[in-house]
């Protein structure tokens, strides 16, 4: 029988994602990929995988998965998510935190509850999922039915085939949790169509708090707050390209930040673009959360990208063997600030 994880409960919106499929945007194919690639990389490092390997992206409410192979090593990164390992009869084997790997045996079940401290977490399996990449990527684009498991989110009863029938013999790994607290302000570069807004409209964007709408998805984060005033140039443009983090403002004046599954082109003016270093931060922010913006120039955005890449590179050096029986006091680690702030970049694309 093929090694697999069986989906007992799918969670709210669980999809397979990696670093995305750049290279096909001119055909209209979105890049997709992890909303928070920093946590994706962390999960893979813990599981002993290359950092960009496909893993399950968990949104808000995690799945329950049964192990249908001799053994499997898993790791979850993102937030302070409680993970329960249950025996076949449903009794608890142990509780695991995020940011450490664990070996599960056949028949055991992994139950991930409601996420805390982040809207997004990643579950990586040692060796990865045996799912053929589509156009170079395992990422799921549900809107196009492309990639992942049949181009859709997980459903109850799905079998997720694994590349590795058994976990390698080695010590479990842990990582000091990343500081996932959102920065006071999300950094943006103005343009390309900031001239479609009045000075008052630009001021509103920079001076007002916005709330992340529940109508947000992997394509775009809709923001609720004061309306941005368009200039006489108006709310329609002859369609042009979009970028990851483009903030488009349709006629109703409410901004939408374009995320991983964003359309490649669009006909609404884009007032600004979230810098690449702040996109994973944005990706892990939950609906209902508040955010505000500050502007930087492209040079500052580039140095932020470099800093984040350096932090990501340093992450591998922070992997430590997990002491058996000792659970990590995450709150303490966070308080001691063992890891520097936001870690991020767009390496590999």
């Amino acid at each position, binding site marked *: 029988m093929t090694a697999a994880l069986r989906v007992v409960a799918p969670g709210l919106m669980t999809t397979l994602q990696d670093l995305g499929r750049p290279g096909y945007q001119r055909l209209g194919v979105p890049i997709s990929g992890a909303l928070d690639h920093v946590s994706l990389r962390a999960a893979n490092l813990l599981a002993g995988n290359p950092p960009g390997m496909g893993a399950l992206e968990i949104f808000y409410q995690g799945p329950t998965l049964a192990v249908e192979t001799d053994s499997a090593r898993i790791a979850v990164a993102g937030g302070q998510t409680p993970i329960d390992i249950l025996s076949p009869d449903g009794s608890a084997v142990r509780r695991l935190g995020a940011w450490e790997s664990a070996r599960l045996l056949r028949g055991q079940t992994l139950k991930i509850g409601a996420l805390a401290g982040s809207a997004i977490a990643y579950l990586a399996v040692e060796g990865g999922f045996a799912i053929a990449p589509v156009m170079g990527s395992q990422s799921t684009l549900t809107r196009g039915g492309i990639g992942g498991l049949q181009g859709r989110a997980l459903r109850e009863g799905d079998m997720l085939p694994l590349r590795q029938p058994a976990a390698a013999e080695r010590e479990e790994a842990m990582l000091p949790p990343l500081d996932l607290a959102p920065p006071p302000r999300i950094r943006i570069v103005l343009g390309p169509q900031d001239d479609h807004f009045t000075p008052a409209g630009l001021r509103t964007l920079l001076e007002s708090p916005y709330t992340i709408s529940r109508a947000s998805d992997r394509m775009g984060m809709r923001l609720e707050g004061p309306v941005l005033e368009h200039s006489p140039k108006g709310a329609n443009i002859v369609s042009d390209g979009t970028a990851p983090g483009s903030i488009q403002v349709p006629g109703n004046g409410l901004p939408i930040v374009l995320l991983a599954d964003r359309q490649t*082109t669009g006909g609404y003016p884009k007032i600004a673009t979230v810098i*690449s270093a702040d996109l994973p931060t944005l990706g892990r922010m939950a609906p209902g959360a508040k955010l505000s913006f500050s502007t930087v120039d492209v040079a500052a955005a580039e140095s932020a990208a470099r800093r984040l890449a350096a932090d990501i590179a340093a992450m591998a050096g922070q992997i430590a063997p997990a002491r058996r029986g000792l659970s990590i006091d995450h709150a303490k680690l966070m308080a001691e600030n063992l890891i520097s702030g936001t870690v991020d970049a767009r390496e590999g694309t």
Partner: protein
Amino acid sequence: MREIELRSGRRGQANPNATIYGKTPQRRRAPARAPVSLTPRPIAEPMPPSPQPRFLPAGDTALVVEFGDRVDRTLSGLVLALARRLEEAAIPGLVEMVPTFRSLMVHYDPLQLGEAQLKGRVAPLLDGLEAAESAGRRWRIPACYDASLGLDLTDVAERTGLSVAEVARRHSGALHHIYMMGFLPGLPYLGGLPPEFELPRRENPRIKVPSGAIAVAMSMTVVYPLESPGGWHILARTPAPLWDMRRNPPALLAAGDTVTFEPVSLREYEALLAQAAAGELRLSPEPAPREQRA
């Protein structure tokens, strides 16, 4: 040698003499010869689009090279010509390019290539840039203009005062040029819509537009490769799969190609659809007409 104006910073404080922009055709007549007067020179009629685009930042991973703000074949030709030159230049750190109606979106990796550096690489490639002749392929795409499939066909006929048959005849007979691909995998934006069909988008967008729907709005036609929400007026439906993962590349069409629609009956449509489902409907582009080779 053409003078290239590079603008750092976010929005170009455009030299009004240097670019023709939108509806303000103020461009110096003669090719660059310094010093340039900064006084806009009134001219009698709009000049052709300038090959001196604006650089607009789209964050730290994308740069917009914008040639204008209209749907225009010359602009589109310049965009495609620059895309070709950039492709040949194989610049390390340049990830991919998306040609659009009027601008080229250049996606890059800021860890390998800075914005300033990228502008420095693009600028010399603008020198002597000419709108690419349609080197694209020519397609005849089967289309069924039956009211059971063209859900807005009757409505559009009423709004234009034409018969349904005449709508089908005029729309299918027009030469449609693909300005860009976008919105959905494999979805082409076609220009060349006869002006009588220029309608605003539907007031109530449909939640589900079926795959293969051929729809019009403003001055364009789109063909939906996949089922999708959409607010355009559906005139017809094609059985041709515009997006097929069994194909490489999966997209049938590309920016720069031209399309005419070949009307087919409902019965032919259904037969072709069955062929397509079996992966047996293979469309090939037509050979280029002689005058294009000359």
